[in-house]
């Protein structure tokens, strides 16, 4: 404990001190450079710590993982595309691919759809900020805590026993159930139930951004529509929704990436059992439980390949934005 305390103080004071010291040091070093070269050297010195971190923790490891995905369970045994062939022929791996696709589709539809609904409705009531906080607050907690919370929602006891899970309790009032929510893999229903947990967390994200965009739409425009006799639904479809569309696209790309990276909920709630694995959790399982780093690396590369188109989309949108600046 005392060792930790000393380290904590050293880190809290020392690290900012050392980093600021580094920046002062660059100015001293630049004094030795010829005056004309200084403005050209300076930005690189300022960016050096960041570029080092990015290279060591993102770029270089990613390159190594791509190379590793062409090797077998043992490092150095070149196996060509075997790991990828395994991925597209093994039942378990294909199930993780199917589930990741379900996550992308359903998380985006539920979170963006409900987020849009709440953003539009909440704009018309007096308790707007309270309602927003209620929907938004799950985003602040960990997926682990969310998993625990929903564990008691989905809890299941065998028929005849008193049900302890909230949903089964509700079903039993109507004489239905009990349903073992996390084990029914027909139609991948248990995966959908896991997605519901994530949607419970991420709807608030979509709502906050869409709500901010909604406030930016001029009321005169809406009034003009209403004066012309448009119903509320027509105003929404004809004016509000088209104006919100760019923001919907932004929110959707973020949520698609979140869905592809989703790991925690699956790990905490089912650990990938009952056919609920996604690519991200399968990668951890292959690498660390089964110790097949070749398979694990291939899964990581497939995840990366799935995200690259979205990244390209993001970058082109970003450059368009920069052009307007």
């Amino acid at each position: 404990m005392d060792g930790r305390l000393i380290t904590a103080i050293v880190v809290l004071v020392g690290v900012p001190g050392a980093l600021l010291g580094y920046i002062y040091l660059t100015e001293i070093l630049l004094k030795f450079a010829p005056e004309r070269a200084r403005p050209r050297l300076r930005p690189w010195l300022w960016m050096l710590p960041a570029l080092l971190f990015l290279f060591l923790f993102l770029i270089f490891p990613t390159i190594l993982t791509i190379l590793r995905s062409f090797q077998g369970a043992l490092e150095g045994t070149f196996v060509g595309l075997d790991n990828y062939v395994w991925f597209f022929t093994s039942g378990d791996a294909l199930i993780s691919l199917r589930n990741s696709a379900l996550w992308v589709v359903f998380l985006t539809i539920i979170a963006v759809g409900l987020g849009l609904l709440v953003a539009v409705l909440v704009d018309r009531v007096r308790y707007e900020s309270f309602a927003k906080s209620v929907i938004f607050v799950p985003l602040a907690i960990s997926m682990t805590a969310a998993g625990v919370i929903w564990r008691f929602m989905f809890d299941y006891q065998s028929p005849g026993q008193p049900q302890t899970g909230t949903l089964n309790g509700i079903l039993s009032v109507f004489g239905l159930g009990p349903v073992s929510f996390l084990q029914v893999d027909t139609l991948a229903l248990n995966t959908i139930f896991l997605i519901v947990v994530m949607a419970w967390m991420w709807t608030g994200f979509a709502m906050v951004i869409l709500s901010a965009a909604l406030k930016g739409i001029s009321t005169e425009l809406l009034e003009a529509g209403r004066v012309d006799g448009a119903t509320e639904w027509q105003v929404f479809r004809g004016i509000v929704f088209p104006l919100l569309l760019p923001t919907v696209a932004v929110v959707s790309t973020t949520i698609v990436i979140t869905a592809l990276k989703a790991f925690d909920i699956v790990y905490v709630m089912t650990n990938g059992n009952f056919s609920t694995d996604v690519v991200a959790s399968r990668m951890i399982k292959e690498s660390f439980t089964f110790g097949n780093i070749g398979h694990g690396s291939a899964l990581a590369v497939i995840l990366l390949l799935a995200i690259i188109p979205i990244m390209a989309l993001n970058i082109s949108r970003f450059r368009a934005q920069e052009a307007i600046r």
Partner: protein
Amino acid sequence: MTAVPRAEQAVATQRRRAASPRWGRIGVHLTLVVLMVIWLLPTIGLLVNSLRSSGDIASSGWWTSLFPPTGLTLDNYSAVIQQGGLGDAFVNSLFITIPATIIPIFVAAFAAYAFSWMNFPGRNLLFVAVVGLLVVPLQTTFIPILQGFGQLGIAGDFLTVWLAHTGYGLPFAIYLLRNFMGSLPREVFESAYIDGASPVTAFIRLALPMSIPAIAALAIFQFLFIWNDLLVALIYLGAVRPENLPMTVVIANLVNSQGGGWELLGPAAFLSMALPLVVFFSLQRYFVRGITGGAVKG
């Protein structure tokens, strides 16, 4: 978020309200109230269950405790606090989170300043590349980094997660700070340079203090991200040094262990949520600004 004066906004809201017919208004309230109940119900259930004995949790639903005899008790909370593991994990969480929040802010601020106020060839291209790194899945980095840590002999140390979280957090941090610093008025920096200020002085005396709103938003994000992180801690600390594990991993292990201890889950989850919720409710303004500032611009 454009700066619409409050009074004007209130009028606008009123006009929106007045426009909808009465039956529609009831539908609006009904939908919102139903959604709010759905959103609160899971947490209320866990809260009630966290106050029940393990026998009650296993034999009846939490809602039965809403009616007398409730049988509610704080025993589970005192058990969690007294039981060494989770208290230690709480300290570990803090110990992981605080340095891993501070380091990337400084590193990103230097880079963001260079990207905003220094000219060099390839500046925009490099910035786009950094933004592109935002989406790299952490999974593609784990195994090589883990091997590297092993070769350096620091596997399982807190240092590994501090460094890793700094690397992983930098693309977003640089993006957010550069957007904010880049929109500061040019004249401020020009006049400082004319007065003979060095870039270091301009950065420490002008750019940093003026960027406090963005730095606050970033600090909150990075704090919540690391405090809530399961995966990075699981991979870099989990196998090697279990005594260094943060709350998220300890709780996740508790859920997956079928051998009881379920009555501790609720209190443990609430203990882990306490800090994020305090941060969220006291700094909500910055939090929302960080989100909307990152996604909707202009």
